[in-house]
């Protein structure tokens, strides 16, 4: 599903990604952990070209993102993204948030989009909030709407950038629950997270990022119980 080869990314003189190599298989759930500033968000954002790539290759669903012939808007319809700050559209109701992209990008009818939207809201447990505005919802509910909104495009791959970091602790669970469900249904997911419990339980593999590279990758059991590198050990000691 994703192949990354020698990905470099610089902001001006500041090289943030220093040669990332990785593969993510279809239906795989990968959690990305690592200290603040190590480039986790930047890496994730390169996967749907929210950041342009300085050098290296990123191949998503068979398309090389660097290729001029690749239609980036088309790729993005296949790659859902969930942000730390939700980024719901505040001027649209919950159902309108979910319906917008399918209508305008996929050009499906309003009825069809609404039907699909309602089913997705049901799935994230928010059917009754369809006609409210995002500002009327709790953070956890907003994030679940954001997940439904991304799913409405029927993506093949979902990217999550610290989806629970902006939430009050008591709201984290409901969002992780939805993500677990998605994983169970076979969605391919790359999740940047500080929720080690989630990584341990749901991830097929964990990437530990530090200083702009993937320092270590392994199954959660191995990473959490028997980390190979000293830096992974130190990091886990701090967060666990």
């Amino acid at each position, binding site marked *: 599903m994703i192949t990354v080869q020698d990905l470099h990314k610089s902001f001006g003189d500041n090289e943030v990604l220093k040669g990332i190599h990785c593969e993510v298989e279809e239906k795989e759930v990968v959690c990305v952990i690592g200290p603040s500033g190590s480039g986790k968000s930047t890496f994730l954002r390169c996967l*749907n070209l*929210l950041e342009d790539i300085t050098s290296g290759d990123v191949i998503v669903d068979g398309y090389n993102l660097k290729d001029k012939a690749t239609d980036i*808007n*088309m790729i*993005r*319809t296949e*790659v*859902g*993204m969930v*942000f730390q*700050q939700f*980024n*719901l*559209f*505040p*001027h649209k109701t919950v159902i309108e948030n979910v319906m*917008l*992209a399918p209508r*305008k*990008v996929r050009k499906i009818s309003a009825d069809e989009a609404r039907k699909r939207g309602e089913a997705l809201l049901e799935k994230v447990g928010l059917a009754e909030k369809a006609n409210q*505005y995002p*500002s009327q919802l709790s953070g956890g509910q907003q994030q679940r709407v*954001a997940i439904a*909104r*991304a799913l409405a*495009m029927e993506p093949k791959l979902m990217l999550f950038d610290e989806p629970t970091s902006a939430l009050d602790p008591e709201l984290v669970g409901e969002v992780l629950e939805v993500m677990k469900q998605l994983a169970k249904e076979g969605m391919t997911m790359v999740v940047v997270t500080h929720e080690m419990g989630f990584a341990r339980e749901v991830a097929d593999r964990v990437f530990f990022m530090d200083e702009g590279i993937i320092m270590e990758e392994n199954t959660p059991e191995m990473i959490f119980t028997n980390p190979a590198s000293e830096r992974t050990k130190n990091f886990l000691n701090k967060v666990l």
Partner: protein
Amino acid sequence: MFDFGQVIDFLPQLRTGLYYTLLISVVGLLAGFVLGAIFGLGRISKNKFFFVIASIYVEVVRGTPVLVQAIWIFFALPIITQYNMDSITAGIVVIAINSGAYIAEIVRGAVDSIDKGQMEAGRSLGLNKHQTMRYIIWPQAFKRMIPPLGNQFIISIKDTSLLSVILVPELMFQGRYIASNHFNAVEIYTTVALFYLVINFSLSLLLRYIERRLNY
């Protein structure tokens, strides 16, 4: 001592003045809004050429008085272009160009103030840049533009009174004409002032209503 009853006799002239004041305000501000939207987007454009043109426009207009702009457009521009404009057209052009520059700054500020996560969310769903602007950024920016836009509308409506110097037969022009012929400055200028007050106050109320309607 003051005879406000006589104002009734001059109502037809004042009504003509009011008509031109409203005509020039409405058409001038509509055109100004279009100019403002275009040059406002120029001010946030990555295209250097567009940005520089928009910036020059804004700075020139902001850096010169409306009165000078009006006189220049009506008396100087025709000499350069060899094309005579009637005073009403000139008046509309003045209001459009002048308000356009301020509205450009309002548009720029409002669009800039929208969190960049909104653009990213739109783009990550596969909407292109144009669609994201149209469905996501612009509606939110528009709401934030209403209060400063309302201010600018009121300023521009008041600025139309300066157009009497280029012989636009608007409200102030009529007032001056009547008062100088009938020596009733107090009655006529008070009435003229009231006309402006009523227009602008109604506009204020309307804008407040629109703003409330757009609350989410």
